[in-house]
C-alpha cells in the first residue's frame, strides 16, 4: 500500500476513534485515551532507533521530559498555543538527540545506551536545580477552561495527541519502506559490513536519533496541560523509561505495527491495573513481561504472528489460520487482563477465586504462545485452558452478580466454547501433528 493512501486511511481511523469518543462523551475516556496514545507515540519513536537501527535508548524519559519542560518554560515566559509548543519541543528534543548521538554514536551501541541513561539523569538534575521551571517542587500548569473550536480542553488534547500518533506512525512506516529504512536495517544487522558497502552509518544513526528524540519530545509537550502539575519524578519517571522499551519489544520491533500493538495492549492494561491494583504492581507486570518476551519471543507479538503465518500457511491465509490467530490473540489479551483482574481479586480478599483466575490467565497466555509456535503441547494446553476458563466463568456467574459482570463472563464462556470447537477441527489439528524434526516453527 502506497504511503499517501496509508496516510489517508490512518487519518480516517483517527477520525473514527475521535468521533466514537465524542459519542460516548465521557471525559475519562479521553483521559485514558490520551495516555494510551502518548505511549503509542513514545513506543513508535523509540522503535525508530531501537528496532530499526538496533541502538537502545534507555533515556526515553529524558526526551519526553524535555518536551514537557519546554512547555513549562514557555508557559511561564511567553504562553503559546499547544501546536506551536509541540513543534518547539520537537526541535529542542531533536537537537539534544543529535548532540548525544554526535558524542557517542561513533562508539559501540553499548556506550550509546549507557550515555542515554546518563543523559536522562543529567537532565533530571538540571531541572531539579532550575527554579524557574519549578525545580524539585514542581510546576503548576493551569489548564485553560476551553479550547479553540472543540470546546472541552481535554478533548482538544486528545485530538492533538491523536494527530501526533498518526504523524508518528506515518513517519515510521515511511522510513521502513524507504531507502533510509534499508540503511537502518543494515546498521542493525551488521554495521561493519554496511560501512564497507558504502552506507554512511554515522549520518544515518544521527538521523534516527534526531527523529526519535524529536518525536519523544513532541509526545511530552502537551503533558503538563494534561496533568496540571508537573514534577521531575513523574516526568522523568520509571514508567516512561520502561514502557518506551517494553511496548515495542513486546509488540514487535521490526515494523511500525509492533509498537502500536504493544502500546495499545500494555497501555490499556496499565490503565486498568492502576485503577484496580497499585501502580507499582502494574509496573512490575510490565517489567516481568519485558523479561519474558525478550527471552522467549524476541520478535514480539507481531513476530510470533508472522512466524506462525509463514509456517502454517505459506501461500495465503485460510479461515483455519485466521481462526487459530483469533484464538491465540484472544488468549493473550484475555490472559493479560485476566492476570490484572485476578491480582485485584486476590488483593480484595477473594483469594481462592483470584488464584484460580490467575492460573487460568497464565495458562491462556502460555497456550496462545504454544499455538503460535505450532507446538503440539500448545494445542493440548489450549484445550485445557479454555475448558478451565469455562469452569471459571460459570463459577463467576454463580457468585458474582450484576448485569455487566454477567455479560462479560457469559461472553467469555461463549468465546471459550467456540475456541474449543475450532481447535477440534481436523485441519487445525493437523497443523500440530507434525513430527519433531520436520516443519518446526523458527525458534
Amino acid at each position, binding site marked *: 500500500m502506497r504511503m499517501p493512501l496509508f496516510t489517508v486511511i490512518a487519518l480516517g481511523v483517527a477520525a473514527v476513534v475521535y468521533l466514537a469518543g465524542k459519542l460516548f462523551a465521557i471525559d475519562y475516556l479521553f483521559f485514558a485515551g490520551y495516555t494510551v496514545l502518548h505511549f503509542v507515540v513514545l513506543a513508535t519513536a523509540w522503535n525508530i532507533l531501537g528496532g530499526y537501527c538496533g541502538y537502545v535508548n534507555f533515556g526515553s524519559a529524558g526526551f519526553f521530559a524535555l518536551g514537557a519542560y519546554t512547555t513549562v518554560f514557555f508557559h511561564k515566559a511567553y504562553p503559546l498555543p499547544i501546536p506551536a509548543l509541540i513543534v518547539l519541543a520537537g526541535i529542542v528534543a531533536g537537537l539534544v538527540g543529535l548532540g548525544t548521538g554526535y558524542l557517542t554514536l561513533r562508539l559501540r551501541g553499548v556506550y550509546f545506551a549507557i550515555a542515554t541513561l546518563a543523559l536522562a539523569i543529567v537532565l533530571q538534575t538540571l531541572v531539579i536545580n532550575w527554579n524557574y521551571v519549578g525545580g524539585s517542587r514542581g510546576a503548576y500548569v493551569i489548564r485553560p477552561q476551553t479550547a479553540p473550536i472543540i470546546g472541552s480542553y481535554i478533548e482538544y488534547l486528545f485530538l492533538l495527541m491523536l494527530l501526533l500518533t498518526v504523524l508518528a506512525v506515518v513517519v515510521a512506516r515511511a522510513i521502513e519502506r524507504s531507502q533510509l529504512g534499508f540503511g537502518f536495517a543494515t546498521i*542493525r544487522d*551488521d554495521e561493519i559490513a554496511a560501512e564497507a558497502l558504502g552506507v554512511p552509518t554515522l549520518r544515518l544513526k544521527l538521523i534516527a536519533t534526531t527523529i526519535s528524540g524529536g518525536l519523544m519530545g513532541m509526545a511530552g509537550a502537551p503533558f503538563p496541560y494534561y496533568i496540571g502539575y508537573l514534577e521531575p519524578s513523574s516526568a522523568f519517571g520509571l514508567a516512561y523509561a520502561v514502557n518506551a522499551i517494553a511496548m515495542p519489544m513486546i509488540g514487535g520491533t521490526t515494523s511500525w505495527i509492533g509498537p502500536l500493538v504493544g502500546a495499545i495492549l500494555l497501555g490499556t492494561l496499565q490503565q486498568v491495573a492502576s485503577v484496580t491494583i497499585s501502580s507499582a504492581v502494574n509496573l512490575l507486570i510490565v517489567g516481568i513481561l519485558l523479561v519474558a518476551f525478550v527471552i522467549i519471543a524476541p520478535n514480539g507479538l507481531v513476530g510470533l504472528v508472522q512466524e506462525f503465518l509463514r509456517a502454517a500457511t505459506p501461500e495465503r491465509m485460510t479461515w483455519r489460520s485466521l481462526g487459530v490467530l483469533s484464538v491465540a490473540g484472544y488468549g493473550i489479551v484475555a490472559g493479560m487482563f485476566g492476570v490484572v483482574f485476578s491480582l485485584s481479586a486476590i488483593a480484595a480478599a477473594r483469594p481462592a477465586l483470584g488464584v484460580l483466575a490467575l492460573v487460568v490467565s497464565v495458562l491462556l497466555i502460555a497456550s496462545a504462545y504454544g499455538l503460535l509456535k505450532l507446538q503440539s503441547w500448545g494445542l493440548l494446553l489450549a484445550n485445557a485452558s479454555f475448558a478451565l476458563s469455562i469452569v471459571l466463568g460459570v463459577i463467576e456467574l454463580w457468585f458474582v452478580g450484576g448485569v455487566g459482570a454477567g455479560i462479560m463472563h457469559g461472553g467469555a464462556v461463549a468465546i471459550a466454547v467456540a475456541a474449543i470447537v475450532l481447535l477440534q477441527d481436523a485441519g487445525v489439528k493437523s497443523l500440530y501433528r507434525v513430527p519433531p524434526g520436520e516443519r518446526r516453527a523458527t525458534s
Partner: protein
Amino acid sequence: MTALLQVQGLSKRFGGFIALDEIDLSVEKGERLGLIGPNGSGKSTLVNCICGTLHNEAGSVHFDGRQIDGMVAHERTHLGLARSFQLPRPFPTLSLVDNVRIPLLYTVQARSGLLRPAGDLDDRCRDLLKMVGLDAKATRFPRDLTQVEMRKLELARAVAAEPKLLIADEAMAGLSHSEIEDILALLVRLNEQGITVILIEHIMRAVMSFSQRIVVLVSGRKIADDTPDAVVNNPEVVGAYLGQ
C-alpha cells in the same frame, strides 16, 4: 605516482602485538595482484586498514591519487574501493536481492547522484546474483545459504559497488574445482572490464594462474613482491609458507 593503490610504511598494533610492520605496497591500475601468506600473517588486517574498517597507527594509504587515511570506510567505498569479507557478513534480515541492493543504493547511486528507476535496480540486482549463480535463491535469506553460497554473495555484493579496486578475501575457500574455475573466470572478466583485483587466497593453483604479481606476507612483514615464478622459487617464501 600513478599507482591506483599506494600503501607506504603501514603499521598496525593490537596492544603489544604488532600485526603489520611497515608494509609498502603499490598496485597499478588494471593489475591482477595476488596476496598470500600463512594464517595470521596479517592479510585481512591489511585489507581492513586499506579499506578503513581498522585504523593504522603509522603509514599512509593513497588511492587514485588521493590520501585516504582520514576517511571513514564508506567514503573509501564511494571512491571505488570494495572488498569481500573473509568470514562472510551477510545482512540476515534482508533477502539476497536486498543484500545486493544495498551497495547499489548507497554507493553507486550516491556516486552518480542520479536516482535510477526501481525496475532498473531490480534488474541489476538479479544480474549480479546471476553472475555468481545465486539468482535461483534471489528471494531467499542468508540463513538458507550454504557457506559456499555465502561467499559468492559476498563477492556479488562487493562487485555491486562498481569498484575500481576489488579485494577478494578468500572468496574461494571450500569451493569445488569447477566452482573455483568459475570464480576465477569471473574475476578475469571483471579485470578485463577495467577493475583492478587483489586476490587473497590459500589455493596456490588459483593464485598462480590469476596473478600477474604476488606479494607474500609473513608475521606482519612483506617478504616478497615479485612475479609468480620468482615468488614460488624464493627460498624465504618456500621456508615460511609454501614448502610446508
